[in-house]
């Protein structure tokens, strides 16, 4: 065990050598706190931290910082997602300070989906800095300095997360991009949803060969498919998704009413394999708008109870 950088629950779990299990929750398209807190309940006690998405797919939702703070109030641990699309460096630093002041201790640093995907495609994007520079910035701030070198009065000590998509192109470069993120300061990585296990095994072999898993905790991204239609849609319309035909066939091979169970079974098989896969320190379970299934998935995945550290 090494000295803690942020003291977040997720950091403590990983630092103690436990297999981490994180969840995800999208804030509402409105100020409906009641509904949001309702969704939190499915995650409470079943995961180590919950990613709170930041206007995901560039659709306007309640701010990730506000939703993260609401989660803190509920006695849970958020992983505050921040994209570079909507904020310049002033807003980014100010939000990091604000988030820390509100009790947020984990951050996931992202570039953000392009606004053309979302519901305000007319918007101007920012991209003052990119995700790599954001990771570096959160680390700089943890060490007590603003981007311009000025001192921070009470540094925001965040556990720094970054994303990695082994399925985007060019594949050969992906492991190097991951290495760059680790060099920039990432403490943990959450990967894009994995469906192509063969490719991911190869990717992790490269990661291990380069020793990257020793410098950073890598959490494998899992999304249970609700049905074959969802798999088809994601395959066609979500950029950077690699969904093998075999998986779509597998889902189609059962009755429509049983497809969600088949999707969960595949996800559970994945978790089982990740538990034994060298270099994988945990799973990031993205049950998209399916939070109520998380207790069952966590139970069947054998990751309960979550460690108290």
């Amino acid at each position: 065990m090494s000295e803690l950088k942020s003291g977040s629950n997720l950091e403590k779990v990983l630092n103690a050598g436990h297999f981490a299990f994180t969840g995800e929750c999208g804030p509402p398209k409105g100020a409906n706190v009641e509904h949001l807190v309702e969704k939190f309940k499915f995650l409470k006690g079943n995961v180590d931290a919950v990613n709170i998405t930041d206007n995901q797919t560039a659709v306007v939702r309640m701010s990730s910082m506000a939703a993260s703070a609401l989660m803190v109030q509920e006695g849970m641990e958020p992983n505050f997602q921040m994209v570079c699309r909507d904020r310049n460096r002033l807003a980014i630093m100010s939000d990091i300070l604000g988030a820390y002041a509100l009790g947020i201790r984990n951050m996931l640093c992202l570039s953000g989906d392009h606004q053309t995907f979302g519901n305000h495609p007319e918007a101007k994007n920012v991209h003052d800095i990119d995700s790599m520079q954001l990771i570096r910035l959160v680390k700089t701030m943890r060490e007590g300095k603003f981007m311009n070198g000025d001192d921070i009065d009470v540094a925001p000590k965040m556990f720094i997360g970054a994303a990695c998509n082994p399925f985007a192109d060019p594949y050969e470069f992906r492991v190097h991009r991951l290495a760059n993120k680790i060099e920039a300061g990432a403490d943990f990585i959450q990967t894009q949803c994995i469906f192509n296990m063969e490719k991911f095994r190869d990717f992790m072999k490269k990661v291990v060969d380069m020793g990257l898993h020793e410098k950073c905790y890598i959490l494998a991204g899992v999304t249970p498919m609700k049905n074959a239609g969802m798999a088809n849609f994601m395959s066609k319309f979500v950029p950077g998704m690699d969904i093998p035909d075999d998986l779509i066939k597998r889902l189609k091979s059962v009755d429509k009413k049983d497809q969600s169970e088949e999707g969960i079974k595949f996800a559970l098989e994945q978790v089982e394999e990740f538990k034994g896969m060298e270099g994988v320190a945990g799973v990031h379970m993205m049950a998209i708008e399916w939070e109520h299934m998380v207790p069952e998935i966590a139970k069947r995945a054998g990751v309960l109870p979550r460690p108290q550290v």
Partner: protein
Amino acid sequence: MIVADRKSLEEILEMVEDCKKILIVGCKGCVTVCNVGGVKEVEILSSSLKIARKKAGIEIEIDMHTLERQCDNEYIEQIKETVNDYDAVVSMACGVGPQFLSEMYKDQKFFPALDTTFFGGATEHGVWEERCAGCGTCIIHKYDGLCPVARCAKSLLHGPCGGSSNSACEISKDTECVWDSIVRKKMEQGRLEDLLGVTEARDWRSARDGGPRRSIREELVQGNI
């Protein structure tokens, strides 16, 4: 060069709705090269406007004049004798043209006939693509001559992002992922190490973010050259 597209006839008709007599000013610079604002295009616009107005029963008188350039006062001055003879002047230059005209001729109204789009070039006959964002601090030597600031949809300095697929950008299958090209070129040349490590954040003061820009060459101002 500066690339532009012509506005729709409807939009231009709406601008000149109240005018009975207009002047259309073309430009022999970039917009002639990209076939949107030269002598020929001025004639086409003039004919189209006349036909549309005749059809609507409100005829319009149009004169045409194509200047060497509309980004140089030396040429803008050439229409000083006649510029006020019109209800309005339509410029077929890039966004610079109507402004230089407007600054010199305070009493006249100037309308843009073009939407200025980007700095780029023709990749094939009839197709132009963006290559430069005019950010004021060129860094493309780091990327083998390819510009991620202008050509990555997110201006990433550490791409390609997770949306890059089959050499295409996540915004459209028809948009090249410039980061894919940068990485492949580096890999082919065995210089991937150029892309390792973290690049400092940009200083955007040299771009539009620092306010309207000005370029002063002292030696020219002093008349030494």
